[in-house]
């Protein structure tokens, strides 16, 4: 899976957790989950769990700690997919 495909899947996962539709439509690698999409911090866990289910990967706590932007999240998903 390339970066574009992962980003598209990620956008679908994020959709139910944000009301910032404009930020979602213009989502790119610099989009920040909290600053731009105003995602509630308790819902970031849901996004991590959805990612684990969708991509069949396990996100450890050290990786989770870095997952605040689209760019870092896509990088971590890609690394986990390649490692698997």
């Amino acid at each position, binding site marked *: 899976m390339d970066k574009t495909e992962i980003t598209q899947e990620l956008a679908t996962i994020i959709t139910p957790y944000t009301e910032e539709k404009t930020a979602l439509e213009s989502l790119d690698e610099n989009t920040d989950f909290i600053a731009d999409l105003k995602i509630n911090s308790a819902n970031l*866990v849901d996004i991590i769990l959805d990612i684990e289910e969708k991509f069949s990967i396990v996100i450890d706590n050290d990786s989770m*700690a870095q997952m605040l932007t689209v760019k870092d999240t896509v990088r971590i998903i890609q690394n986990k997919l390649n490692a698997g």
Partner: protein
Amino acid sequence: MLGNDVVDLLLAKTQSNWRRKNYLAKVFTDAEQQEIWEAENPDLMVWLLWSMKEAAYKILNRSIEQRFYNPKAFACQISKLTNYSSKGLVCYDGKTFYSNSKIHNDCVHTIALSTQHPVKTIKSYFGLNQANYVELFNQNHQSFRLQKNNQGIPEMLNLCSKTKSVASISHHGKYLFITHL
């Protein structure tokens, strides 16, 4: 240094399903999970512990000037719990934060401190979460000015003494809390 966090319990109920598989294990230590399942009100315990973690994270985030998302690494110990309040410690990477929480009908509010500061000297303002809350606060408190410093961090300027202190703002759902030393 201080940090504060509020959880609107009614909103949390619809916004988050903490009973979802693996949710608790991602956020809470084994001891915290046990505390949740043994609690009289597990929903309240989830959000009490969550607000302790968030309030402590806000202090750390300011002092190290770095953002990260690792709630499980903030280990909470509740030393006192009544129907209306709670006290405890939050430990992260060898650092200890002191937490004081108030439990209201439909919200939980925690103030965390990096030192054992007497909690009575902390000023805490409660209001409704509206877009213009800074303006409203400043209109209603003539001797204070809530503002952001160069790094975008909230601070409270005391217009009488001309002193500045660290402020922490938290809003969720209907609720807004502004705290300062």
